[in-house]
């Protein structure tokens, strides 16, 4: 349990720092920018209490917002992501599929499940993020396009990290 706790804290720290110092500067013009820090939220233990999850998501969002100078936008996006995560896990996983402390990563779940999980969650996150940032329905199609491209970018990054870091774990 302590190991899980430390692992998650380190993951949060590394991913948020990487996000604000490295991935903030990476992007294909305005069209696609990656937000792989949401991986930390996605990889929280599968049965984490809801309120706890929402609080962590909110605080993560606020932390990223502080660096992006957009107070509230990432927090809202992370709250949406937490909601999507709970709904998605409830819909796709039975209670006996996983134990309380297991991490919903490639190591525990199938590759296909993880890919869909990543894509849908990043879509919800990016959708909220971009529309709150633009704050209008003008150029709707352009915003939607950049959401989609950013989504693909983030998904690829997260799946790559997951493949590199967690491959050796037991199935």
């Amino acid at each position, binding site marked *: 349990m302590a190991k899980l706790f430390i692992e998650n804290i380190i993951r949060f720290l590394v991913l948020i720092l990487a996000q604000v110092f490295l991935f903030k500067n990476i992007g294909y013009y305005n069209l696609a920018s990656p937000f792989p820090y949401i991986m930390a939220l996605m990889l929280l233990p599968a049965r984490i209490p809801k309120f706890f999850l929402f609080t962590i998501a909110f605080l993560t969002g606020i932390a990223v917002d502080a660096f992006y100078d957009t*107070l*509230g*936008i990432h*927090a*809202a996006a992370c709250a949406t992501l937490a*909601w999507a995560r*709970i709904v998605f896990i409830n819909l796709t996983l039975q209670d006996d599929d996983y134990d309380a402390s297991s991490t919903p990563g490639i190591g525990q779940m199938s590759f296909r499940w993880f890919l869909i999980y990543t894509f849908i969650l990043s879509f919800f996150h990016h959708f909220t993020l971009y529309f709150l940032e633009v*704050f209008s329905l003008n150029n709707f199609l352009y915003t939607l396009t950049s959401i989609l491209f950013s989504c693909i970018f983030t998904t690829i990054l997260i799946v790559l990290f997951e493949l590199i870091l967690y491959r050796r774990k037991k199935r």
Partner: protein
Amino acid sequence: MRNLWIFINRYSTFFLFILFFAVSFILTIRNNSFQRASALNSSNEVIGRAYEKINYFKAYINLNETNLTLAHENAALRALLKSSNYDSEVISRTIRDTLLEPQYSYIEARVINNSVNQKNNYLTVNRGSRHGIKKGMGVISSNGVVGIVLNVSPNFSTIQSLLHSDTRISASLSKSEAFGSLVWGQNAIDPQYAVLRDIPNHVEVEKGEQVVTSGYSLFPPGIIVGQVEETGITSGSSFLDIRIKLNNDFSTLRYIYIVIDKLSVEKEKLEEQNTENG
């Protein structure tokens, strides 16, 4: 109460989501200037539209009254305008010289009506018989000949412009001093060009040569009319037709001078005797 608690507990995910999202949203709007501005604007837009619509209908009710007051105001303002005053002051420029008796004097006038595109063009100016203008006087501007005074009323006179098919002005070529009459409107009705007629065939005419008034008729000698543009036109007889580019731009005439020839009456009287005798 218990049912409510069960309901909330059942959809706790959704309520938690709403709670956290609302907090973030409020933070977003309160702390980001762009989002705050657009949120306020969109609400203002709704209110503004409503006010605009109401005002639009209100305006109809008062329309008659508003029109009346505006008309009164317009009339009052119009009376104050400088252009509604008639400028009756005339500065007649004559130079007293004990050796030379002045023959010509000039009255300046402002063009108040003008045309260049008709077959026969006229101008109206704001000087009339009160200022000593008589029928048949010559009119010039700073750029050259304008025309001949046609009719005179106490305060206005009309001028038969050079751009009139009946106007004949005696003009001569500046080098050879051969003279002919300047006409307009027989063939070409371009307001920039006129034709100098009755120049004998043997006269050598250069392109670009200046054409000036001859001094035989109403105008003082040497006033510029224009430049020779084309010399090759012959009317088949022993006379040349010379196309002339007029120096005056008739479409932009503003101020003109009316030429008063003191000796014209005497000259006409004398010349009348020629025909009586002949």
